[in-house]
Structure formats: C-alpha cells, structure tokens
C-alpha cells in the first residue's frame, strides 16, 4: 500500500487560482489544468512515482480566467473568463477558438463527455449549451439569477444561482433542445438547503445526487430523485469553522466552503474552505473521515483525479469581506498541491 504523500506543482500560477481539473481517463489521466486570475491556464502533468508535477504549458488569455475544463480528450480544453468568451484550447498547439460570447463574465464551464455537450454559465444570467457534434448550434437558456456554480453528473446538470436558487437540468433533454432550439424547462427547480449564498456544487459520480456548500461554513448533501423518501435523506452539516480567540470576543469564525469534489471511485467527497483546510467526508455514513493539515492560505479549488489516486488542491488567499484593492493581494501566494492518496485514505466505511 502506497503511503500518502503530498507534493507541490512547480511554477504555480502567479495570482489567485479559480479552478482546477483533471484530465479524463484515457491516455494521459494525470494531466491537470489550473485556471488563474493571472490571465493564464496552466497545464501540469503528474509523473507517477516521482512525486512531481511538471508544468507542460501555459495558455494566455485576455482577461482573468474563471473556469476551465477538459473536453473529449486530454488535448482539448475549454475556458471561461472575465472577457465574456467561452473558448476551446488545443493543448498541443495552444490554438484558441471562440465558441460563444456572453454579455457578462463567464463564471463556469463544464463538459459532458456522455452527450458531448459544453455548458457555460455567465453573470449575464444565462446558460450557453454548445452541442459540440454540431458546433454551430448554441442554445441560450435564461436563468432567474446569476449562476455561481455548475456541476455535471452522467445525466444531470446542477446550476446554483443567487437567491439560493438551484436548477437541475436533464442532459438528454438539453441535447435534443440544442437541435430543436427550444428552451427547455429545468428538470427540477429547488431552493438551496443552505441559508446562505451557494459557493460550490459537486455531483455524485454515481448520478444519484449532489452536494452544495455555502459561504457560511456549511455543506448540504441531497439526492436527485424526487420522492419523499429520497428527499428525507438529505442533510446538511457545519464545517470549516474555528473558535475565535478570546481577545476577539470568542464565538466561531465561519469560513466559506469554496470547493467540493467527489471521489470518483468511493463516492466520498472532499471539501475545501477559507480556513485553509481540506476535509474528507463519508456521505453515506455522515462522518468526517479526515481533515488535512491547515494550508497557509484559503483552499480555492479541489479535484480528484479520475482514477481517484490523486487529490489536487488549489491554495491561494481568499477574498474576504472588507477587502479592497490594497488589502487583497494573491500575487505569488498561490500554490498547487497534489496529494497522492493511500489506497484506503478516501474509502468510506459505509453506513453505520
């Protein structure tokens, strides 16, 4: 059994990290894309057994990049950023191709390999659905609020918006809608189980449900199935908090939960918070399995590799209330850490 080790990617982004994704399983499963506020997307490759993550390339953008995802293979990526564009990047040649333009910054971008759909969400309160098998077809779906997080499962798309709105779309329906150009209704409309602004969403790899997190140190787990039994199973819990020092009046300091990621094999999940910690949770047994040592800065992004062997952690200063031009500075303080998990590290014990 390989012991757990942790190492840092060489040449991390210069500024805050916005997102971090692993390549799909296939020829190069250990590729890692990191998008940053320094207007670049970074491509790293983890060398198995060498405890090393090497920078392969970086791709310049016109504006800070807010999200990135892999396409059908490890050579294709899609990015979204403040320049309001959704772009396709050929990772080998570095070629950029603009797929669509929103009316405001594009916050998230996700790709569904099962349906070859690319979905982008923008602060102009729309979704763009790109059918990549016929690239000309872009469907715009208006949203009732600004989207803040997107997550995709084999058959569903979860959109978390302001005002605690959550829409769940059915991907096959979206696919047919792209050809008919009719705006589909969401498969389900829900109110967030959390009282505060949604920060992150992550779908379970078994297509059964999803987890959301909020700015108020809390995570909720719920299921897609719309039956009373399934809905009765949903729960929420507090996390990423710490007691305040006495001289500051006590109480709890509550951090936003910035990142959520499910383990692709075991179905357990990790949460990363503004307190600089990463915790592993067993969604079935409702237990915390581990909490890793505190990082010097806030955890901005998390992702498990598709084989579940690595956990990549993007660490950079988090934007806190009351910060401004002078007080927020993430330059040179971002790090990409990779944790090689031991075999049982992320394995839950099951219910009870």
């Amino acid at each position: 059994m390989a012991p757990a080790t942790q190492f840092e990617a060489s040449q991390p982004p210069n500024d805050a990290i916005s997102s971090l994704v692993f390549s799909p399983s296939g020829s190069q499963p250990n590729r890692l894309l990191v998008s940053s506020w320094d207007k670049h997307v970074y491509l790293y490759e983890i060398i198995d057994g060498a405890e090393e993550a090497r920078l392969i390339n970086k791709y310049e953008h016109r504006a800070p990049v807010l999200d990135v995802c892999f396409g059908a293979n490890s050579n294709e990526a899609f990015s979204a950023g403040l320049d309001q564009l959704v772009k396709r990047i050929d990772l080998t040649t570095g070629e950029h191709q603009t797929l669509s333009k929103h009316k405001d910054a594009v916050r998230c971008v996700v790709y569904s390999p099962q349906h070859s759909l690319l979905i982008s969400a923008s602060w102009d309160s729309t979704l763009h659905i790109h059918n990549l098998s016929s690239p000309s077809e872009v469907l715009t779906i208006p949203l009732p609020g600004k989207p803040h997080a997107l997550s995709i499962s084999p058959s569903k798309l979860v959109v978390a918006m302001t005002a605690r709105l959550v829409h769940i779309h059915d991907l096959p329906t979206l696919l047919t809608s792209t050809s008919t150009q009719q705006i589909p209704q969401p498969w389900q409309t829900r109110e967030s189980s959390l009282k505060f602004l949604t920060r992150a969403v992550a779908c379970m790899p078994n297509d059964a449900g999803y987890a959301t997190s909020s700015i108020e140190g809390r995570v909720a787990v719920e299921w897609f199935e719309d039956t009373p039994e399934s809905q009765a199973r949903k729960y929420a819990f507090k996390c990423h908090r710490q007691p305040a020092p006495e001289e500051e009046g006590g109480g709890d300091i509550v951090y936003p939960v910035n990142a959520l990621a499910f383990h692709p094999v075991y179905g357990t999940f990790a949460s990363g918070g503004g307190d600089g910690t990463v915790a592993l949770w067993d969604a079935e047994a409702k237990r915390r399995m581990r909490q890793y040592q505190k990082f010097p800065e806030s955890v901005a992004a998390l992702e498990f590799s598709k084989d579940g062997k690595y956990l990549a952690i993007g660490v950079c200063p988090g934007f806190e209330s009351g910060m401004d031009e002078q007080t927020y500075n993430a330059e040179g303080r971002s790090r990409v850490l990779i944790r090689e998990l031991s075999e049982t590290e992320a394995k839950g014990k099951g219910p009870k």
Partner: protein
Amino acid sequence: MGKKKRGHPDVEELLERPWCYYCERDFEDLKLLISHQKAKHFKCDRCGKRLNTAGGLSVHMNQVHKESLTSVENALPNRQGLDIEIFGMEGVPEEIIQQHNQRIIQNFYTAQAERQAATGNPPRGNSSSQGPTKKIKIETPEELKKRLAEHRARLAAQKAAAANGTPLPVSAPIDGQSPSQGASPFPPPQPGFPYATTPVTAYPPAPQGYPVPAYPPGAPGPAFGNLPARPPGAPLIPSAPSALPQRPPYSYNGGAPPPGFPLGSGIPSTVDELVASAAAAGGRTPGGDDIDQLIRMAEAGIKPAKTAEDAPVEKKKKGMRMVYDDTEVSPEEKMAALARYRWVEETVV
C-alpha cells in the same frame, strides 16, 4: 413522602430533591424535573418538539432540520455540552453531584444562620436558649439545670444508639460550646474540606482550629444511629430513557429525625461564627457562591461578566463571525470589480 412540612425543610430533604443538571434548579419530584428538561433544555427551537435527551434533540435537529446542535439551550454556561447524556437525574457526573450537594449544604447553613440572625430564634430541634452569638448569654440557674437535663437526655439517647450496635463517632464532650462535628451526615462546609474537584468556592480560613472531618469526596458522611447510609449519588445506570430512574433507597420519611439522631445540636453557633468570619474575611455576601451567582444571572438573563476564569465557559454563547458575509454577491464578482482584474472591452475583434 409524608405531608409537606411548613417553613424550612431540613438539609436532608433539600438534598433529596431531584435537580436539573443543566440549570441547577431543583424540583418536587422526578416527573416535574423530566418535564422541565423536555421543555427547557430538550425542546427543538425550530418545531417545538420536546425530546427526551440532548442526544435525541441533536439527532432530531440533524434529521429533520438538517442542522447540528452545538449546545443545550438555557443551560448554565459550563453545562451546555452535548457530550453528557442526561435524563432526569441519570447521567449526572459524580463530581457534579458532589458539587451540587456541597452547594445545597452550604446554602442551607447560611440560610439557617441568616434566619437566626434575623429572627433571633433558636434553631429548630434545639430548645435551649443558646441563641445567635449576637445575644449576650446570661444563664439563669434554671436554664443551667435545664441544659444539664438535656445533656443527660442526649447522652442517654446516644447510649441507646450505641446499644443498637452502631458505634458513635462523636467522642468529644457535648457541652454546647464545642460543636459536635459530624452530628449531621452533611456537616456545614468546613475550611479544608477535601473537595478535590472543581474549586467552586474558596472557603475563608477558619477562625480557630476546628476538628475537621476529613471526608474523601464522594464518600457519604459517617453512618449515624438508625439512619441508613446514603448511596453516593444517583447510580449511573445506562437504562432506556422510558424508564424512570430509581431514587436512591432512603427510608427516612422526612418527618422528625429518628431517635438517637442529634440533629443540629451545637452546630448553629459554629455556622454563625463561620458566616460572620466569612463575611468579615472575604467580604463575600453569605450564600454568594459562584454557582449561585451563575444561576441568578442566568435567571435574570445576564451573561456572566467576562473574567479570565469565566471566559472559556462563556464563548459558546457568543455569535459567529463570517469571514465572507455578502449573501448576494460572490467573492469572484468582487474580485472582478478590482481594477487589476477588471475587464474593459477593447475594440471588438
């Protein structure tokens, strides 16, 4: 229980009353205590459901409202923990029981002393004219004779008790001046009482060298006459929450003390002196015990003043501080508005 006695109950009765771990209130019987706990401490603030235990409430909050319970409502600041499962009197830690009993005893004797000081009446069960220390004691020959008769009667009673097979722990001469320590199984608090757990009260130094009964904490007082030994607190049985906890077996029916039980003889003068010296030495109001203070403040809805020793207890009550608290605008939107990240549309390509 016999008919409720008027006036002031004696210390055994007080000690026997069931009381609430969370707020130190005591009750007439266990049923009342349990319904108090369900209403005050184990009630769900979302839906009003009354649960049997804090653990039950925690599970309920988790399952029904998807929230987690962090502390017990309306509890004293140092009793809010969820780690102890309390039902009625079950599950109360031994040292807390000791602490409670200690407090009851302390309060009882200070209250008794205050009453005597206020009324000038002799204590119950002592018909001699030996009043509070304030009064100048002038004994008439009649009184002296009466006292001698009493003394003889007492000796006879003790002999009778000894004849019953119980050894007498009191060997000191009983003359009304030197107090017979240990006359009650629950003697008034003494300086140097080996009370090993949380130092709630620091008793003022004794005015003079009293014979100090060295009871180990948790041990009952010396067995006396016909009085059965009190079990050291409620047994900690992990029983089902539906079953009412058993009271400790106690045959003493709350009436007059059994024969051979010289309750209170000689004690009052000691307590008076104790209280007087406590007030003089510590400047502390009689009965101004720390726990009492906490209870009074809790009742008045005042948070304890922030002192170094109170601080760790207090913080659970305090609110939280969110590092990012804008519920409408995400941190990314705020960052995007900073000059260094702001996107200005160039001439469209």
